[in-house]
């Protein structure tokens, strides 16, 4: 398997919409993620904090985005993200890649259960607090490579 150079993997030139969903003002992590994504060669459409779910979808339509990266840090992510995939399907973005990450729920809950809930909501991947940006980028590259082969996402 050929080794991907930093700016030349699958995903190079792909457009990703980022933002912090709901009434959440925690922007710092989202900014750091955005910078890392840009450095990795992605085109980032940054919506910033306090972004309603509908705005992610509208931005994705207009920019023909390949993926949406939803951040939520204030514990209400589960409420805010409910129906997110449905919104995308409604807007004709049936297969858009959806990631979610951050402090998705309140209190100490078992991550496996939390992840399952978000995957059941239609997200392709969910990331716990403390995830490294490099891991997210690696996952994006695997998923875009899988899509180039006609699969929805990579196995791992």
């Amino acid at each position: 398997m050929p080794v991907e150079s930093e700016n030349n993997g699958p995903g190079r030139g792909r457009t990703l919409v980022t933002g912090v969903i709901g009434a959440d003002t925690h922007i710092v992590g989202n900014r750091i993620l955005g910078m890392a994504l840009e450095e990795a060669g992605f085109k980032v459409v940054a919506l910033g904090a306090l972004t309603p779910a509908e705005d992610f979808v509208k931005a994705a339509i207009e920019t023909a985005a390949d993926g949406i990266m939803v951040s939520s840090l204030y514990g209400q992510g589960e409420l805010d993200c409910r129906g997110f995939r449905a919104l995308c399907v409604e807007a004709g973005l049936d297969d858009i890649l959806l990631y979610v990450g951050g402090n998705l729920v309140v209190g100490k809950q078992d991550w496996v259960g939390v992840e399952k809930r978000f995957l059941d909501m239609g997200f392709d991947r969910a990331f716990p607090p403390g995830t490294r940006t490099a891991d997210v980028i690696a996952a994006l590259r695997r998923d875009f490579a899988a899509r180039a082969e006609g699969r929805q996402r990579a196995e791992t």
Partner: protein
Amino acid sequence: MTAAALLIDFGSTFTKLRAVDLEAAHVIGSGQGPSTVTTDVTEGLHKALGDLEHRIGWLPDFKHRLACSSAAGGLRMVTVGLVPELTAEAARRAALGAGAKLTGTFAYRLTEGDMHRIESIGPDIILLAGGTDGGNREVIVENAKRLAASSLACPVVVAGNRDAADEAASALARAGKPVTVAGNVMPEFGRLDVEPARAAIRQVFIDRIVHAKGIDRAAAMFDVVLMPTPAAVLEGARLLADGVKGKPGLGPLVVVDVGGATTDVHSVAEGAPTREGVVPHGLPEPVVKRTVEGDLGMRINAKAIAEAVGFDAIAVAADLDQARVRALFDKLTANVERLPQSDDERRLDRALAEAALRIAMTRHAGTITIVQTVTGPVSIQTGKDLSDIKVLIGTGGVLAHGAGGAAMIKCCLADPAEPHTLRPRAPDLYLDSDYLLFACGLLNDKEPEAALTLGLRHMHPVGNNVS
């Protein structure tokens, strides 16, 4: 004899002239004739020139003869974009900024029904947007093909995704539609760039629309019809605000114009938040912004104003009983050119203008919404914050000619009872009593300094709100 310029407004009711001394930068005289665009435009212009000559006793040899036009329905425009709040909204703003009269706004893929509607509207021009640069390309190309296959013959300005613009334009060109490609109205997500589209629309207006409307029949009597009248007013406002090199203007300002069919608000201002800790939200605002309230007009839409604020409220404001108000309304709608002839009618006009101004300014200005977050309430600003604007100018018939224009434009100002709308708080108030803003906007094209001096001299201060 010093050099003079003739500024012409081919309006829907009147042909208005202003003769200006370019060295002294003052008005030599005015003339007015009927609007005869539907028959022979030269007739009304001849009459207006006769009126001008009659008033000043002679006709100068004009160095410039510049015109604008809102006759024959104005520049009737349809806009098409992708997402209603994004490129479709950007297209709408570009169209309004170009002085167009919006006759239809469309988003997403044009349906069969949409196409029927556009064909029945029969616009003078279509602005086709959609997709950020490198973004969605299917929809604009598909919409271009639909327009190409239609019976429409009007020019199309393509101002969408750069990657798709050529394909969209050639689909239209192959079908024989006149097409111009301009820069994308939204090149990146959240960034507006309406200037290139605005310039392209203006060029199409000069090259084609003037001819299509029959105004060029009087071509021997003027040099050029530069733009639609609302664009001339907006240009005038921009000049007054920004000034020219070496001669400052008035700074950020707002112009309100109450007409018979619509109420226009023009602002030349950044509109950045003035309150602490406010987060701006939504599309960025163009510095030079025009909004048109198609439901607020002193004659054609008098009833709509009353419906918006309530007949009883209008009656109270005009100090008339409701039956009398309704009777007067019937008179107004039966004859939309009617000027007030009694005290009752003047009071009703004033109440209507005040209501129209209050609503139009509220819609033009930004708003603050409070969002509750876990870290406490956050104020979000949508639109322009005009609180600190220092200059508010009233123009248009009822404000300029009626008595009490100064009192009327105060209705635009911020109201402590509505703290969430960001209307101007305490600007100095001016009236364009001589109807010169359009003339300044036109003259700006050739003699910006004279145009500025003229404008500064002829906006009449009528006090400020600090009382």
